[in-house]
């Protein structure tokens, strides 16, 4: 009872209960090309992300998926619209929103563990304070014995696991994943997707995953955002009402197949 009262008295309590963690309205980005012509990368993007939701973002190349992700991550500034995270406008990179890219981007002079600790180095915090948690995260992603190995001693899949552990150490509320396993072979990618689901489920974290793979998008997500190019727009949102936890055999089921087919139809890939 007392604890409840305290929560209610906190000024951001109303916000904390808000099921929507991120709101984009009329979001747009226009670049100026070398010849001075304006190039519209994305336009009129509207969406709301619910807390704890897993969203897959699909669309053909050049439809502005990465631009949208970079806007949310605060890496680039929007030219139009608004982008509100937990009640405040996104104006730059912030701790609560973490990113992961197609390349693992590990620093070759740092060991796996030191790479995982990078966010804390950026914050200027003592490494020793976070070392145990970093080692635990490496264990979580299946790299218990590789903490002191250098990136060049790790395979592509292992490198991407280190990158995932680094993102987890940052402990953001929103995970922006830009085709994180896109460069890996089919088997490794599937295994990594399942591990990602395991780690995400029950964490309450919000995930926005960009992917080229329609099956993967349906298999992982609660909703599929479909974007289309020229200029990049969010054209369709599909609900994925498959039960969780998701298991590979579900891919055989009619409900799954229908959804994959529906996404294909929306993408015009039929």
């Amino acid at each position: 009872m007392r604890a409840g009262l305290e929560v209610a008295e906190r000024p951001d309590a109303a916000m904390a209960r808000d099921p929507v963690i991120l709101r984009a309205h009329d979001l747009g980005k226009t670049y100026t090309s070398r010849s001075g012509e304006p190039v519209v990368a994305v336009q009129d993007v509207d969406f709301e992300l619910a807390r704890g939701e897993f969203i897959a973002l699909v669309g053909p190349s050049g439809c502005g998926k990465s631009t949208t992700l970079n806007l949310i991550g605060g890496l680039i500034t929007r030219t139009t619209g608004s982008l509100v995270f937990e009640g405040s406008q996104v104006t730059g990179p912030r701790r609560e929103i973490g990113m992961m890219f197609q390349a693992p981007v590990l620093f070759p002079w740092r060991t796996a563990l030191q790479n995982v600790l990078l966010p804390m180095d950026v914050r200027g915090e003592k490494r020793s304070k976070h070392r145990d948690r970093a080692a635990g995260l490496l264990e979580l992603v299946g790299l218990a014995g590789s903490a002191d190995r250098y990136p060049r001693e790790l395979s592509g899949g292992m490198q991407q696991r280190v990158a995932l552990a680094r993102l987890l150490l940052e402990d953001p509320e929103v995970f922006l994943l830009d085709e994180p396993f896109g460069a890996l072979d089919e088997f490794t990618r599937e295994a990594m997707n399942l591990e990602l689901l395991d780690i995400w489920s029950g964490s309450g974290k919000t995930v926005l995953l960009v992917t080229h793979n329609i099956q993967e998008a349906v298999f992982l997500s609660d909703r599929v955002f479909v974007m289309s190019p020229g200029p990049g727009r969010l054209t369709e949102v599909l609900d994925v009402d498959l039960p969780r936890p998701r298991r590979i055999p579900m891919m055989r089921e009619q409900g799954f197949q229908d959804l994959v087919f529906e996404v294909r139809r929306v993408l015009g890939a039929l």
Partner: protein
Amino acid sequence: MGTTAEARPVRPGRRLASGARRRSYLLITAALVVAFFLVWDWLTSSGVLHRIVVPPPGRVFERSREIISEPYFRRHLWVTVKEVVFGYTIGAGSGIALALVSARFKSFRHLLEPYIVALQSLPKVILLPLIAVWVGYGQTSAMIIVVMVSFFPVYLNTITGLLAADENGLKLLHSLGASPRQAFRMYRIPSALPLVFTGLKTSVNFSVVAAITAELLGSRYGLGFMLANSGTFLRIEDLYATVVVVSLFAGAVYLIFELVDRKLIFWREDRNRFRAEERQR
């Protein structure tokens, strides 16, 4: 979790095979060196080459050993070492410092660039007579020329390395909320290190050559003077022996830098390329 069996990038069979191949190359190299000395010895002992023009290798090595133990040699070696150490420290040091400032501040780079471009292709040795007019031939002129030749490779490699840092790393740091200053310190500088060291190694070789050239052209001290002196007085054995000793000196300097490089820049790409290709298969 962690149940996927990902192939470790280690293939003992292949590595063994490559080790055997490397050993056989080493053997051929050594055999060629031995053959060279045998031919040289035969040419001098059979009289094809006159002993005064080309002394037998045995004599040259004997004389080299004598020279190394003479205080006369130590004195001259010390002079050259001093010129190289001081000149190189100033030249390479300012190369790194200016490159850091140039990489951090664009306007400074644009101001500096025309001078660098104009001066880098200039063969610095042609300035020696001019420098001699200002300060005379001697340790100072040698040191000045060492400063000049050691600056450019270090500056150019450092600035290239700093500016060529991978965009992805910078993007990652940006997403983590790093300031440009942090990105510079945590990412640009370490990514530039392999090239910085390439510059440092090139410069140290240039420095030794420049110091000795300066000494050859009229100094009364240093290894270059020793060379010139033995030539002038037709002490042919001494001349050969000095060439050997000076080569050993230059080789030792190179080796020290190479070892430090290997220790410090253990992630160097060009050295790991073979390994990376292995992993690709």
